[in-house]
């Protein structure tokens, strides 16, 4: 089981290393979002500082959605899921393998985005441990939900618009928790940062269980 998960994840990451879509296109795009936020908010320093946590997670949400679409795009090369379904890899490993590779890509995205937000929005980190924990928690939740809702929308014709519509309402609580946790870590407000981080892990756990149960079913049904 673990071998299959690592096999699939390694395959995805090798494709990513070759194609450089995640770091080559999605990361710069999310950096652009962070800059554009400043344009929108008229580079109003206090406002950007207060909003830093929230804007960061909106950028990650946007990048995460694109990475989720990309993760399934490469499986439906010929326009259908046939080979992915015919794959002798067990369905649970497919789900966890895809989630693992998406998780690593989202973490890479966050590693690029965090310094940018800290510099551009001129905020200091008061609690590094909380910042990292929240970042990881968000990445786990984003990747697991992304793979679950991604497979539901991926095989369909209108997937590029349907996936965000299905995914973002589900990720709204994660965005909420992530923002509050980051604001605590950045010392912008005294809030229960660790409780928000654990909430994100709970959401990720719930979706992992649901994903393990429903992934095989959804893979067949589109």
């Amino acid at each position, binding site marked *: 089981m673990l071998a299959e998960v690592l096999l699939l994840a390694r395959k995805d990451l090798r494709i990513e290393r070759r194609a450089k879509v995640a770091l080559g296109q999605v990361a710069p795009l999310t950096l652009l979002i962070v800059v554009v936020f400043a344009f929108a908010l008229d580079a109003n320093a206090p406002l950007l500082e207060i909003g830093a946590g929230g804007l960061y997670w909106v950028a990650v949400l946007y990048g995460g959605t694109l990475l989720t679409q990309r993760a399934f795009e490469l499986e439906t090369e010929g326009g259908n899921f046939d080979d992915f379904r015919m794959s002798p890899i067990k369905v649970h490993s497919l789900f966890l393998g895809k989630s693992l590779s998406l998780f690593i890509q989202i973490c890479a995205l966050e590693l690029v985005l965090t310094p940018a937000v800290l510099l551009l929005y001129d905020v200091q980190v008061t609690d590094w441990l909380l910042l990292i924990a929240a970042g990881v928690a968000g990445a786990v939740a984003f990747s697991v939900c992304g793979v679950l809702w991604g497979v539901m929308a991926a095989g369909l014709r209108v997937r590029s618009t349907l996936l965000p519509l299905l995914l973002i309402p*589900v990720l709204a609580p994660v965005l909420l928790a992530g923002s509050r946790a980051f604001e605590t870590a950045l010392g912008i407000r005294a809030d229960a940062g660790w409780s928000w981080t654990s909430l994100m892990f709970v959401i990720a756990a719930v979706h992992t269980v649901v994903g393990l149960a429903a992934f095989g079913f959804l893979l067949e049904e589109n």
Partner: protein
Amino acid sequence: MDDSKMTATPLTRVLGILGIVAGVLMAVLGLFVSPPDVVQGEAVRMLYLHVPSIWIAYGSFVLTSVSSLLFLVRSRRREDGGRHYDRMAGSAAEVGVVFTGLTLITGMLWGKVTWGTYWQWDARLTTTVLLFVTYLGYLALRRLPADPIVRGRRAAVMALISFINVPIVHYSVDWWRTLHQKASLSVGRRPEITGEMYWTLLYSALTVTIVGAWLIVHRYRVIRLEEIRDEENLKMLISSRRHERPTGSAADGEVS
């Protein structure tokens, strides 16, 4: 299930008339008979719309989730492959979305009068708007043309996952807002509902339930008619394909 070509039958006619009469009575009761609130004055009359709509919206989504579960569990045993449950889930969801929309409209109007702003990020309304978008996604998923069973299964799984999500959304939004409200003075406490107001509210809830039920039954039948039409088109397509002539065939060039 009767195969009535129209969606009206004796049952729905009775239900429909009842709904209209009850509706008129509700308007009279809610707008004129029941007293204004000591604090909110006339604005409290929004209560008789807002609370029942939330009630029916959540009720419809519960019905959708229960039907979806039954569809997934029972589809093998029923001779119609559980499609009855799938249709129920679809019709309840759509009616639920309509009432969630009404909840938002009445909620915002009421908020404007009592709190002075249309949108005050109050926990309940924020959760409702997320629910609204979630089930709009569900309806979008149902609209994609596919084999009824395949579409049904896909929609059923989404309904169940979305239902599991409701408490998560509810909890996180509640927690977020209570933190916030503790900081600022909490305004707009619940008006005490006693006496005439209480009965009016109860009556309104009953009326809206009748209207909701009437809508779900009709919407269910529309889905059933759509399925009959699709099946007949399918039979027509199958027979036309079987009679394809060897040379230039009538149905040429479609996807193999």
